[in-house]
């Protein structure tokens, strides 16, 4: 797929998403908002597994910390100012990612997978067992964040459509931010690390430093998703950080197509919609979901979006052949 067709289809998709709340019912607006949030989360993980070559199996920890930072700081507040809450969530998630990353990037391969899992479990159990932050009951938020200048409300998120556009804006910003850093020299280095770390190191780059920065960026972005989820549902609890969530996030990235930035977004649509509609088909829907994921790994390891170029190529070839008809007749 050329970058022009890609950008064109992305733009058309964006227009469709912008128009969607005008037609969709409040339930579907909420559902797509959730998909945006999951997509941001998956995008952040894609930076690690798809571009830097770091398979993190504990990414849900940063998602959870983003949500918890919001909930802990503002559980008793009557007004939650976005300009206070959002930076706080991002900083908390980024800081946690710095600590976890500093410990984990010294390992590689299977060890990296396992140590990120273990660190995430540590956060999970801390929030689950310590009664300090609500334990397994979690924390409720009774208000949605607002953006105010002086005493004037600019943006109130308690309206579902407002939240929708806010989440969409976050997704688009996150996407563009990743496009930007991947085009920058930094992006070239991390993709080179994924391809061949030894060679990059031989060229004199401190690969661990680059990996750590990538890890912190990804963690911060996951914190943004966690912030949105906490604000959207008005509720955070330790299960945000469970290893199941980390596993599902990996599934989303791969299902959509890792190493592309639109893949995780497509993956988020697929998984959230499947989770939403499969249970209506059968009580044993997890069997189906599991089956679908297995099928993708075995037959479509580059994800659903790897089908797009093939589909386009298929139609192109048809167009070329059909009008001409059989030439040798």
């Amino acid at each position, binding site marked *: 797929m050329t970058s022009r067709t890609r950008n064109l289809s992305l733009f058309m998709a964006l227009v469709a998403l912008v128009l969607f709340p005008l037609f969709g019912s409040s339930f579907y607006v909420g559902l797509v908002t959730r998909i945006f949030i999951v997509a941001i989360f998956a995008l952040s993980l894609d930076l690690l*597994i798809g571009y830097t070559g770091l*398979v993190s*199996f504990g990414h849900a920890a940063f998602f959870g910390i983003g949500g918890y930072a919001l909930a802990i700081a503002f559980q008793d507040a009557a007004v939650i100012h976005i300009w206070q809450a959002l930076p706080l969530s991002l900083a908390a998630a980024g800081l946690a990612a710095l600590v976890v990353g500093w*410990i984990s990037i*010294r*390992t*590689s*391969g*299977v*060890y990296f*997978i*396992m*140590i990120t*899992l*273990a*660190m995430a*479990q*540590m956060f999970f*159990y*801390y929030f*689950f*067992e*310590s009664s300090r932050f609500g334990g397994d009951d979690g924390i409720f938020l009774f208000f949605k964040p607002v953006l105010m200048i002086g005493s004037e409300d600019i943006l109130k998120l308690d309206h579902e459509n407002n939240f929708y556009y806010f989440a969409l804006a976050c997704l688009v910003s996150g996407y563009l931010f990743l496009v930007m850093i991947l085009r920058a020299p930094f992006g070239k280095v991390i993709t080179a690390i994924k391809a061949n770390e030894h060679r990059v190191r031989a060229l004199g780059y401190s690969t661990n430093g680059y990996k750590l920065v990538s890890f912190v960026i990804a963690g911060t972005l996951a914190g943004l998703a966690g912030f949105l989820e906490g604000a959207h549902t008005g509720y955070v609890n330790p299960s945000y950080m469970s*290893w199941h969530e980390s*596993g599902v996030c*990996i*599934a989303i990235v*791969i299902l959509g197509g*890792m190493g592309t930035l639109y893949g995780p977004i497509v993956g988020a649509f697929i998984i959230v919609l499947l989770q939403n509609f499969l249970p209506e088909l059968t009580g*044993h829907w*997890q*069997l189906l*979901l*599991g*089956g679908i*994921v*297995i099928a993708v*790994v*075995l037959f479509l*390891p580059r994800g659903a979006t790897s089908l797009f170029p093939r589909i386009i190529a298929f139609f192109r070839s048809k167009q070329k052949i059909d009008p001409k008809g059989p030439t040798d007749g």
Partner: protein
Amino acid sequence: MELSFYLVQLLNAIQYGFLLFLVASGLTLLFGIMGIINLAHGSFYMLGSYLAYWLTGVTGSLWLGILLGLPIALAVGYLVERFAISFLFKLDHLYQVLLTFALILVFNELQQILWGTDVHSVPIPAILSGSFQLTENQSYPVYRLFISAACIALAGAMYWVIQKTRLGMTIRAGASNREMVQALGINVNRLFAFVFSMGVGLAAFAGMLAAPIDSVYPGMGDNVLIISFVVVVIGGTGSIKGAFVGAMLIGLVSTFGKVLLPEMASVVVYALMAIILLWRPQGLFGKVA
């Protein structure tokens, strides 16, 4: 607390360590020999427990249940390897994580379809149902000692097979250089299918042996999965010796953590893992990658 209290806790710790080793040994085998990261390991443990429950109910004897159940578990392992895992050798670990994660979903549902959602248990065989007095009011079941003995025997047998037999030699060679062994005329595919089903068999065997002292319930595999990963990683992947030491270490830390730091009982285990990996990123007995 008196000294005897700590001695009993030490016994508990070692016992728990043996159980952990039993579960983790299969995992480390797959890690080390095949380079496979198998998240469905807990599901195979669950499969073992349910097979033990089902077949013990049918035959009236745990021994017969294990005897009939093991071939079933091995067959399941073989099929999973042939139809799924064998496609993954050339791919990144990432795909193994995802595929085996999906297998967890599948196995959990299959368990419910086959055996329903009740909580079950398996009676301890009459011959091992006794217990002996530890302190003035606490006694210790003989069956727990039997499990420890079984673990020691199994650890010895695994060590012997892998280090001393021709089969073990082939397996080790296949792990370090797949193509070379293939070129020597050994069917590596068949060999790996065999190893994978052995790994599954070990997990299931652990589930079977533990069934009489555990309870058998849906989702039970999730509880053992993560902790066995911790054991394997602390010990160093692929090292049977490492898994043994790792299991004992976790047994000790987790048991005394529960007693001395009850608030942080679950956190200490993961903290230990983080500390050990900071010090030795490849685990205690792992080879430097």
